[in-house]
């Protein structure tokens, strides 16, 4: 019987198109369970597999470093604890096979964590599943076997933890389709950074199918594609590949407009490990380092020392270029797990960014101290998110001063980096002259939605009003740029507007000469800039970009 084409709608989480076999991660242990031996042999089999699992995890932690390593450290500690496998060893002594005894023992641990009322403890169930599967596989005598995931396969899963994603080889993965999950999740960030097309929130279990197409532009998973669908998809993949290779070639060299204006193009960094070195070399620096992963990925924020190491590892790779770190920007729509927040009726207008940090200095201080220590190591700048009045900048600056004094008293090397603010609220843009910050970086995503009172994901009519190139936006940006020029302060723009070809010219016509864009957009943005003439433009922004 001919299979019919089936379509499942989800949300795009990382752009791209992929075609390949549809694969599910094998659940539980290997089906080919090893033949049972004597209790002594079975005990030895389990103990050896656990030691091998620790070795694999150590290798993985060593390769990934940073946050990813911290996630794996907990599993290593658990596997090294004889109490973990004690019930399994007792069951083996009573006649069970190592395989059955291990699965029964881990099922107990998993159920126990899953029944917890505390979300942090509940989340450990997935770590236990990882351990269960890894050890079971090793007992079957197989090393990290990726045979279940053929090259270019589309992986279907209910959800995926960062540790599981990291254990996959992103270069082999064609695409990722999650039944649950969120485009804001850390896995989505990793997928975007590593160029793995991803959709999430399919919401229901798809049918069994051998072949699939993952369209992360429309957010669709297509099973058993017809020949016409498959051909259309192949054409799009080829087109994307050509565009990607020409953009990659355009990455090197300065971005100079046709009429001779040099534009600095920096990159935004979410996940340092995932930004290739050639992109960092080709960029004019890093214009935005998002630090949320330091707080959100693990079960708890990294401490000062771990944050310092995390930041320093990126700084070392950036080399001579500037590196602008944004302090913690959570709250509102990106809540920090474990913080008992009163649900806000309108999180975008609530406790976000600098507001949350000033409310919770115990959370903010370790980051400030880590960044002050980092400032002696390279061209570091620090900027504060979601500032709306000058006193927020003053209060934050006072905290920085206090922490610097503490560090000096402790004899720790530290320095005050240039401290700037992000311009994300119309209030900050309009009253730009009241802040006296060291530099300004326009966060065009938030500035657009607050100025236009229209959410990007608002859909239909609302989303169509979310125009970074509107007259109001261009006037605000021009106002900030002019203030920067008049007072000798650097102004840059680090939102998605900078990589939007339809508004790029209007942005540069305001006098803006510094953009920070997603690593994947670097080549394309430089390409666009080189084809623009901007000096005969209208700086007041009367030429509205309708489709911006």
């Amino acid at each position, binding site marked *: 019987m001919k299979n019919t084409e089936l379509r499942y709608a989800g949300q795009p989480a990382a752009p791209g198109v992929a075609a390949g076999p549809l694969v599910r991660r094998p659940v539980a242990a290997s089906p080919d369970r090893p033949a049972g031996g004597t209790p002594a042999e079975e005990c030895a089999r389990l103990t050896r597999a656990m030691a091998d699992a620790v070795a694999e995890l150590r290798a993985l932690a060593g390769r990934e470093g940073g946050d990813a390593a*911290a996630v794996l*450290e*907990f599993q290593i*500690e*658990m596997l090294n*604890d*004889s*109490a*973990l496998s004690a019930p399994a060893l007792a069951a083996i002594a009573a006649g069970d096979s190592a395989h059955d005894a291990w699965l029964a023992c881990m099922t107990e*641990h998993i159920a*126990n964590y899953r029944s*917890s009322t*505390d979300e*942090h*403890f509940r989340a*450990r169930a997935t770590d236990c599943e990882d351990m269960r599967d890894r050890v079971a596989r090793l007992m079957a005598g197989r090393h990290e076997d990726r045979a279940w995931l053929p090259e270019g396969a589309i992986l279907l899963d209910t959800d995926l933890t960062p540790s599981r994603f990291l254990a996959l080889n992103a270069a082999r993965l064609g695409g990722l389709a999650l039944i649950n999950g969120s485009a804001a999740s850390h896995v989505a960030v990793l997928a975007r950074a590593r160029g793995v097309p991803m959709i999430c929130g399919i919401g229901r279990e798809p049918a069994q199918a051998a072949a699939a197409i993952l369209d992360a532009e429309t957010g669709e998973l297509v099973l058993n594609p017809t020949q016409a669908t498959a051909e259309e998809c192949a054409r799009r993949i080829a087109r994307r590949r050509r565009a990607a290779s020409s953009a990659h070639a355009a990455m090197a060299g300065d971005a100079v407009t046709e009429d001779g204006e040099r534009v600095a193009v920096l990159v935004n960094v979410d996940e340092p490990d995932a930004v290739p070195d050639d992109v960092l070399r080709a960029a004019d620096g890093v214009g935005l380092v998002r630090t949320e992963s330091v707080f959100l990925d*693990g*079960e*708890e*924020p990294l*401490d*000062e*020392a771990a944050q310092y190491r995390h930041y320093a590892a990126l700084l070392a790779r950036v080399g001579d270029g500037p590196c602008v770190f944004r302090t913690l920007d959570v709250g509102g729509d990106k809540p920090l797990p*474990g*913080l008992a927040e009163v649900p806000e009726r309108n999180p975008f207008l609530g406790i976000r960014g600098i507001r949350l940090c000033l409310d919770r200095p*115990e959370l903010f*201080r*370790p980051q400030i*101290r880590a960044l002050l220590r980092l400032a002696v190591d390279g061209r570091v700048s620090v900027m504060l998110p979601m500032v709306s009045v000058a006193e927020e900048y003053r209060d934050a600056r006072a905290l920085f001063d206090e922490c610097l004094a*503490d560090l000096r008293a402790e004899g720790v090397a530290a320095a005050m980096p240039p401290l700037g603010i992000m311009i994300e609220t119309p209030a900050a843009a309009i009253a730009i002259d009241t802040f006296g910050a060291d530099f300004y970086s326009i966060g065009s995503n938030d500035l657009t939605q607050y100025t236009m009172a229209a959410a990007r994901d608002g859909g239909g009519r609302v989303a169509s009003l979310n125009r970074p190139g509107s007259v109001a936006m261009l006037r605000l940006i021009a106002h900030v740029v002019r203030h920067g020029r008049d007072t000798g302060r650097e102004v840059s723009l680090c939102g998605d507007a900078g990589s939007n070809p339809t508004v790029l010219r209007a942005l540069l016509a305001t006098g803006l000469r510094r953009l920070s864009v997603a690593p994947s957009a670097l080549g394309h943005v430089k390409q666009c800039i080189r084809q623009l003439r901007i000096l005969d433009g209208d700086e007041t922004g009367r030429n509205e970009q309708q489709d911006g």
Partner: protein
Amino acid sequence: MRTARGRVPIRHHTGLHARPAVKLTRLARTFPAEVRLRGSPDGTWVDAKSIVNVMSLKLPTGTTLEIEVTGEGAESALAALTGLVARDFDEEH
């Protein structure tokens, strides 16, 4: 045999959870003495050198942790362990 006991509140926002638990058990294992923990006056004592046991307590933030050390160097081990918890596992400054 010397026994030392102390109590210290857990302030970490995730409770005695993955990373704090890793730190605590690693520190406990550096002492030759026996180290036990419990999360309430009528709670079960568990071996502080075993992360599986420590995690099984599922102690949330705000819990007063009771630590009991028996054997060589009990006092200094207790001071080091309560110190780590009191310093919030060296994650705040």
